[in-house]
């Protein structure tokens, strides 16, 4: 009495979902008078057809892995952390301070401290909402929304009035010193004979993001703490019976979540821009929500969803470079992908499941 083969569950259905999303996107492209087939080809070759394209795809994916993991950990503890955006902003400040004010001998040391700086600042920004939720019952959704706005204001102040070098027009910090600059994938792969595009911003942060996936997996699915977080998220009453402290779990989950959001800045701030700019997060905190939900709050799901979004970002860039298709089309495609793979999943799943059961029954007779 098999329900549905596993391959159909993990491959066929997502594929069909994506297909619908892309077909609809194609209709939108047609409607604005462009050729959808060309557009798709351009997106795919632009994002995946060269090491250059991969370089950007992976760069964006790195950001989304961090924020996606962040949202998913909080989610597992039944906390909807909408504050990834603000936590990443403040995390960027932490990275910037570390990079600007500590003289590092080598990037390997710098990145360690930058990770800590980003994580500590990001976690600190999640701390107050977490505490208020745990002790005062103030809903974390409201407080994290508020903290996003507060973070934007704080960063605006700091970048315009405090960290901006004299005469600089852009509200940004000075460039980080040479020794904090992270090797790109080109630098990493060149010694082993792989010629990866030099100009793509993807850097060693990618490996840290991948490691973060693994660590979050181990933490959530293999460690006692993860066990407690998941248990608490599913039933706070039962957790109390088991001796799990709600206060501790709420604080820890939000700190981990904020820390991961904050760590995103080693990629965009330290790795790419090499300075902190005002709008460095660019909504990655919000994309993280979509990534986490689409990845079913599982680190490996988050990884896949982050790659998908990286692809959409980079593919979309190529579209706007070579066609007159407005950049907003990419947002529409993203929306359709989220909608069909994430929310309207059952629209495809139910009939496919029925078809499998029917054919299985027929086979049995």
């Amino acid at each position, binding site marked *: *009495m098999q329900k549905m083969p596993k391959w159909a569950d993990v491959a066929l259905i997502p594929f069909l979902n994506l297909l619908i999303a892309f077909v609809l996107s194609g209709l939108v492209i047609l409607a604005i008078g462009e050729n959808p087939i060309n557009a798709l080809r351009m997106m795919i070759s632009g994002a995946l057809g060269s090491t250059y394209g991969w370089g950007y795809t992976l760069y964006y994916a790195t950001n989304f892995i961090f924020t996606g993991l962040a949202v998913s950990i909080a989610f597992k503890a039944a906390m909807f952390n909408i504050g990834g955006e603000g936590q990443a902003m403040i995390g960027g400040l932490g990275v910037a301070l570390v990079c600007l004010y500590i003289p590092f001998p080598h990037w390997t040391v710098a990145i360690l401290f930058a990770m800590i700086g980003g994580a500590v600042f990001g976690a600190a920004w999640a701390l107050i909402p977490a505490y208020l939720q745990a002790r005062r019952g103030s809903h974390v959704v409201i407080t994290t929304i508020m903290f996003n706005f507060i973070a934007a204001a704080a960063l605006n102040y700091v970048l315009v009035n405090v960290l901006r070098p004299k005469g600089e027009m852009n509200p940004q910090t000075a460039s980080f010193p040479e020794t904090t600059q992270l090797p790109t994938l080109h630098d990493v792969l060149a010694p082993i004979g792989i010629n990866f595009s030099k100009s793509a911003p993807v850097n060693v942060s990618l490996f840290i993001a991948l490691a973060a996936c693994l660590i979050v997996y181990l933490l959530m699915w*293999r460690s006692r703490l993860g066990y407690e977080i*998941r248990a608490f998220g599913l*039933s706070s009453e*039962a*957790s*109390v*019976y088991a001796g799990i402290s709600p206060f501790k779990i709420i604080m820890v989950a939000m700190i981990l979540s904020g820390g991961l959001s904050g760590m995103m800045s080693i990629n965009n701030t330290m790795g790419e821009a090499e300075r902190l700019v005002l709008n460095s997060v660019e909504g990655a905190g919000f994309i993280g929500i979509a990534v986490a939900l689409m990845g079913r709050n599982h680190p490996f799901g988050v990884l896949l969803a982050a790659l998908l979004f990286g692809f959409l970002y980079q593919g979309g860039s190529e579209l706007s470079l070579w066609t007159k298709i407005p950049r907003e089309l990419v947002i529409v495609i993203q929306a359709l992908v989220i909608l069909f793979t994430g929310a309207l999943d059952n629209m495809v799943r139910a009939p496919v499941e029925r078809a499998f059961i029917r054919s299985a029954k027929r086979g049995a007779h």
Partner: protein
Amino acid sequence: MADMSKGGQQATVAPAIELRGISKAFGPVQANKDISISVQPGTIHGIIGENGAGKSTLMSILYGFYKADEGQIFIHGKETQIPDSQAAIAAGIGMVFQHFKLVENFSVLENVILGVEDGAMLRPSLAKARKSLKSLAEEYELHVDPDTLIEDLGVGVQQRVEILKALYREADILILDEPTGVLTPAEADHLFRILNGLRDQGKTIILITHKLREIMEITDTVSVMRRGEMTATVKTKDTNPEHLAELMVGRKVLLRVDKVPASPGKKILEVENLRMVDDHGVERLKGISLNVRAGEILGIAGVSGNGQSQLLEVLGGYANATGEIRISGDSIDLTGKYSDGRSRRARGIAHVPEDRQEHGLIMDFPAWQNIVFGYHHAPEYQKNKFLMDNAKILEIAQDKMDRFDVRPPNPQLEAKSFSGGNQQKIVVAREIERNPDLLLVGQPTRGVDIGAIEFIHKQIIALRDQGKAVLLISVELEEILSLSDRIAVMFDGHIMGERLPDQTDERELGLMMAGVTQEGDAA
């Protein structure tokens, strides 16, 4: 009795309900297989069967809550389609579900009128319902304050609301799914009086229960279900509990508890002057003192709501209190960091909670993760300093599930997909096998079938015989009387007194549970 005369009419009157060839599958689970049954009007028809036999599913189909894959339904001889509950209500069927379908933060009145309001505006509906509730209350002894919120009512009263709901909808066929599972004996008696009254008025009643005593006491006919099939239907007067038990489980079941006399050792648990105030500022424990020795079972009897739950919570470490608790002579913290479930477990206190779904299990965790719930810090479950040893836990879970006869014995299944009895077995397996010094047990067999009850009782006694202390809380007097070596009665946050099981009876305990004291303590 009335049912005698009715028995004679059966041939001429069309059955109130007739089901033909009902089948229903939930994915791979065949919950009902080709079931046929007919129920005569004006009778009480019992349905028994093990946990997961498909009783609730069948009734939900009759009530239009689930749709049958196959089969026909006849009401008073007419084939009737019941695609949804609306149709069932129209056909005169009312149902009291095992898990009540009440809106907790609504008043009684609002729950009663929900779905059968008289017009677009609420007020007239409420006024009308208030009136007819009053007359229903008088007619059937169903007294409930119409303006209380459901969440402020005890389960017994909530059930009355469910019955009122059905009567208000003018049901003449009433289905009750395990109505006495959560009731005190007094409440159950009350319910049966009501049911008898309803039958006398010509209503048809289907009663699902695990308690053979109830079947024998009140039903006219009884059907037995096993593994999704209807295996037998017999006249109640032509059968006996042992026979029914055998039909149900498929083997002989011991309906009595077999145990050797206790040989109590040193005091394991000592409680002195325990006081506890709940979140609403109400004092729930008003100076409890008791002790449990090694190798004995102390049963605590009482009508639910008299502080037993709070006593368990305090002992289990998830409510704060004042007073003194000693385990093997050492006192333990009653507030602060070390007053939690984890610290209690570290002190050798295991705990089968009253509500397995709310407290005892994470319903969305697979069975194997539930098997270490609360003990997940134990060294033997760890692979190293950071990681748990999942492979080993899985193995342990498999082993426990096999030995405790958890069905199906698949540790990867989520807790929620086990039937109540099997969920309880998972909890019991987890707690007992930790080899605790003290086992706290709350309502160990609530909603559990007789086969599983037998098994769980055996486990508790075996633990006692190993020289462990057991504190048992149950609203089933029968269970208390048969398992306990000593019985304490709780009333209004006090211990009313203690008795030895062979020197007391249900009547005396019942009086004490109602707050009436008699002669001195036995202890």
